[in-house]
């Protein structure tokens, strides 16, 4: 074993991509598989710089299909493996992640959203929400953390490995091009030093002993002959996913008792929303926010509770209704009106949010 990459708490000023590479190191990741795509390239770049110093590995594959499948393979061999991608790469990544979902493989994928559809921009968006949460030909049995700062990128990348290995669902850290490329301060730490134990990894295949005699056979399947057989398997997975849900859902809220406008946002946009809501609340206006941190599973009950005390909901996102759709789905049955401030592929400033909320409040007068 090489020496520990991080000792004590270290204040750092770096890009989000660099923060992810450090987090993976701190989490004890063994290997990264990847294929370059902007804006996630520097995760690979920093990892390849850091990895040899700590006896970690890196494999560049021929595309994202391969990066995803090799990540699955790394996990099957018992390695804490991860990959990172964005945009069209994330589209290709869905095929292997669908397999991970089928076989309950604890892969970790970091997504730095860029503009879409197709090549679009290399800059930024929140347009990979639906894809990351529900991509693949399945039911979206995955965990998706949406971060909003470098500190969270670091914290949740570490956490993603633990959630994945504890519950055995593919886990995603969903950020964006702004978070990838911007520089801000954060504190790096070794999770073990803070008492945050890393869930141990184990090989899925090639275990010692004779299958059926010394141990149960490894029976990994993504193929079924009979409809009912598949349904039974999925019913078990869905049940376990639902049992896990209250244990891992995370959210943040402000001023949600009796609001005229409750703003819902995630990721980097949440920062603009938080600034806007606090500014308006300081003026005495009844404005609050709700921020899902886990987009999958979604904090449904918590949002419902906040929404039940709101006169109007405003969903703000850099996409054309991807979060809005999730919010509507999770609030079905409540009669609170829902409006969207939707800017696909474009950053949102606090000033814009303030202006939109003022318009809504003005309309009500």
């Amino acid at each position, binding site marked *: 074993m090489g020496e520990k990459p991080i000792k004590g708490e270290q204040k750092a*000023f770096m890009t989000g991509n660099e923060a992810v590479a450090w987090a993976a190191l701190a989490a004890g990741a063994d290997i990264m598989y990847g294929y370059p795509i902007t804006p996630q390239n520097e995760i690979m770049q920093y990892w390849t710089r850091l990895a040899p110093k700590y006896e970690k590995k890196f494999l560049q594959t021929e595309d994202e299909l391969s990066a995803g499948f090799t990540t699955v393979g790394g996990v099957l061999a018992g390695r804490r493996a991860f990959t990172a991608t964005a945009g069209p790469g994330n589209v290709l990544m869905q095929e292997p992640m669908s397999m991970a979902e089928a076989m309950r493989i604890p892969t970790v994928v970091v997504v730095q959203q860029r503009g879409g559809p197709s090549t679009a*921009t*290399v800059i930024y968006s929140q347009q990979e929400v639906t894809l990351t949460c529900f991509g693949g030909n399945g039911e979206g049995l995955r965990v998706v953390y949406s971060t909003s700062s470098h500190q969270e990128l670091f914290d949740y990348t570490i956490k993603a490995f633990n959630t994945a290995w504890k519950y055995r669902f593919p886990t995603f850290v969903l950020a964006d091009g*702004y978070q990838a*490329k*911007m*520089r*801000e301060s954060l504190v790096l730490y070794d999770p073990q030093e803070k008492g945050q134990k890393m869930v141990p990894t184990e090989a899925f295949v090639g275990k010692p002993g004779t299958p059926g005699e010394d141990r149960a056979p490894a029976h990994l399947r993504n193929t079924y002959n009979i409809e009912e057989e598949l349904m039974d398997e999925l019913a078990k997975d869905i049940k376990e996913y639902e049992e896990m849900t209250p244990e891992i859902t995370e959210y943040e809220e402000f001023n949600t008792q009796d609001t005229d406008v409750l703003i819902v946002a995630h990721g980097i946009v949440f920062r603009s929303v938080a600034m806007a809501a606090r500014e308006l609340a300081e003026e005495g206006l009844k404005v609050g926010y709700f921020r899902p941190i886990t987009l999958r599973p979604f904090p449904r009950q918590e949002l419902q509770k906040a929404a039940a005390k709101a006169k109007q909901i405003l969903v703000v996102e850099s996409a054309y209704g991807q979060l809005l759709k999730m919010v509507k789905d999770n609030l079905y049955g409540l009669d609170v009106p829902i409006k969207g401030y939707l800017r696909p592929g474009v*950053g*949102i400033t606090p000033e814009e949010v303030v202006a939109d909320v003022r318009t809504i409040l003005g309309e009500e007068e």
Partner: protein
Amino acid sequence: MDKTVKIALAGEGGQGVQSVAMILTEAAAMEGKEILYIPNFGVEQRGGVSIAFVQIGDKKIGAPKFKTGDIVIALSDRAVRRVNMYAGHETIFIYDAGIEGVEDDLPEVAQRVLAIPALETANKELHPRVFNVLIMGALIGATHVVTLEKAKEAIEKKLGYKFEQNPKLREMNFKALERGYEMVAGTGVA
């Protein structure tokens, strides 16, 4: 400093605006300030207008994008047209005095519009290579977001290896920083 200072710095790709932002934010980080720096980047590897959005303050910075900057600097005609939208009533808008044909593009709303002979000074008195460091000096003169001493430390950290080989470069960079600082500090904007 009780307020977050918002800066938009724009120039042609290759003029070194991102390097200025890197060194400036490093200096601010060494002073223990809170910073958010986001480069604006396109698909092109070279050319095009490059913008650095920088916010420096004492508290955690909120959103990465802002509508109005406190200081907006443009180093080419295209850059003037690209970033004049970030000027508001309290903005100090600085551009290079050598830029021609932008009279109608300068932001009328800005509190102050300042033309500084940065390129000319760098070319005639110093060296074209330190143009961007001169701009950094002007930026510090207008905002005082970091001290000149810290800025020099950050330059040393970034370019120290080059200074080892040629100590004259250090002198030239520091001089450019000071010249830029004086250009703006003397105008009463800060």
